[in-house]
C-alpha cells in the first residue's frame, strides 16, 4: 500500500462508507462508482453501512506476506453485511479456531498495517464476534 492510495479511501476504510445506486437502490461495499445493473442510467452516491454482518466463509492465514507476517495466525473472512454487499476483512477472535460460517460480527477500528517502523500506519475496519457485553 502506498500513502496516496491509502489516503484516497480513508473515509471508506475507516467508516464503511460505500455507495448506493440512486436508480435501483443497490448498495456497494467496497464502493463502486458505476452500478453494474443500471449502468449509465444510474448514479451512485455515498452510503453508510452499519457495520453488522455475518461470516460467509473464512480461513486462518498461517503464512502471510511480509506486511502481515507478524500478525499470523489471523482469521480472514468474507462477511455479508446486513445491507447486502460482501466484504473481505479480518475477524479478531480470542482463538483462531473460533471462526464459524454464520457467525454474527460487528465492525471495529484497528490497525491494518504499517510501512515498517518509520513509515505510515494504515488503519481500517476489522470485525469482532457480535456478542453482548456482560457484567462479569
Amino acid at each position, binding site marked *: 500500500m502506498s500513502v496516496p492510495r491509502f489516503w484516497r479511501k*480513508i*473515509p471508506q476504510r*475507516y*467508516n464503511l462508507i460505500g455507495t448506493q445506486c440512486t436508480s435501483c437502490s443497490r448498495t456497494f461495499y467496497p464502493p463502486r462508482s458505476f452500478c453494474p445493473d443500471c449502468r449509465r442510467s444510474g448514479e451512485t452516491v455515498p452510503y453508510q453501512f452499519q457495520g453488522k454482518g455475518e461470516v460467509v466463509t473464512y480461513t486462518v492465514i498461517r503464512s502471510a506476506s511480509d506486511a502481515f507476517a*507478524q*500478525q499470523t495466525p489471523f482469521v480472514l473472512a468474507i462477511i455479508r453485511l446486513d445491507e447486502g454487499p460482501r466484504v473481505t476483512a479480518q475477524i*479478531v477472535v*480470542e482463538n483462531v479456531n473460533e471462526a464459524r460460517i454464520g457467525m454474527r460480527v460487528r465492525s*471495529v*477500528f*484497528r*490497525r*491494518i498495517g504499517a510501512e515498517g517502523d518509520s513509515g505510515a*500506519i494504515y*488503519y481500517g475496519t*476489522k470485525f469482532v464476534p457480535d456478542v453482548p*457485553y*456482560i*457484567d*462479569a
Partner: protein
Amino acid sequence: MTGIITYGAYIPRYRIKLEEIARVWGDNAQDITGGLGVREKSLPDLDEDTATIAVEAARFALARRTIDPEQIGAVYVGSESHPYAVKPTACTVGEAIGATPVMTAADYEFACKAGTAGIQACMGLVGAGMVPYGLAIGSDVAQGAPSDALEYTAAAGGAAFLIGQDDPIATIHRTASFTTDTPDFWRREGQNYPRHGGRFTGDPGYFKHVEGAANLMFEQTGKTAKDYDYAVFHQPNAKFPQRVAKTLGFTPEQIKPGLVVPTLGNTYSGASMIGLAATLDVAKPGDRVFVTSFGSGAGADSFDIEVTDAIESEAFRRSAAPTVRQLLANPIYVDYALYARHKGKIVMQ
C-alpha cells in the same frame, strides 16, 4: 451550562497478572501486588494502539447519544503513547467518527493528565461559543521498561468525553488546576520508555499536586469532601488514590466506583477518565462527582461535576455502549511471552 454530553470508554480484552510479570523478574508477587494494590493490567491486541483505543471510546460515546458528528468542532487526544511523534492521533479520531473537516484538533501530552487538559480546552471553546461540541479523549498503551516498577502497572485503555452545553448528562461547574515544574517522571525524545524518580514521584509529585488542585477547588467552591457523592483520582496504583482521598476527607465508598486500577492497571492518560466513566456508569441524577487527575511534570486538574436528569432521559442511552465494568469482564489472560509480543518488546527483523 457546560458539561458532559456523552462519554465512552474502551479497554482491550487482554490482561496479564502481576504475578506473571513478577515470575519473569524473580520478584515476590505478593509484595508487588500488595504494595501496589493491583492484581492485573490490560494490554493491547497486536493491532491496537492509542488511536484505535481512542476511536473505539469515541464511537461508544456517540453510540449513547444521537449527535451530528459534524457539530463536533474540536477533537483533542491526550496520550503519552501517540502512534506518531508527529502527525496527530486526533485527526485519525476525527476522521473515524465523521467529524472532519470542519474542526480543530491537536494531540495533547501532559503525562497522565493530558486527557483532562483536553476536557478543559473543550470547556473553554464550548463556553466561548466557538464550537457546539468538543471531544476530549485520554488514551494510552502505556509504556514501562521491562523489569522497571512501571511495567507492573502500565496498561492500555481510554475514555472519551463529549463536552457541550445542550442538555448535558453532567454539568461541570468548575475546574481548577495546580501546576509546577517538577521532574518526577519523564520520557526524553527518541526514548522507548519513561524514567521516573522512584519515591520522589510520591510526595513532591502526585500528592503535592493532587492535594494542591483539590484544595484549590475546595477554596473556590467553599465545598468539602462531604458535599460529594463520588470522587475520582488519578490512579497509578491503588495506594496513591486511597491515601489522597483519605487526606482530603473522602471515604472509601466515595472512591469505590471510580477505582478501577486493581484489575485494569494504570492507563496513564486514560486513568482518571476511565475512573470518571466508571463512576458515571452508576451515577444518578443529582449525584455530585469530584475528579482530580494528575500528570507528572507536574500538574493536576480538579473538576466539580454534577449529574443531571439527562443521564436517565431518553436522549441518553447509557446501555448502548459497554460500561467500564463490562469492559473489564471476560478478559483474555496471557503469559509474559505473549505480552512481550503484543507490546512489541521482541526485537524482530
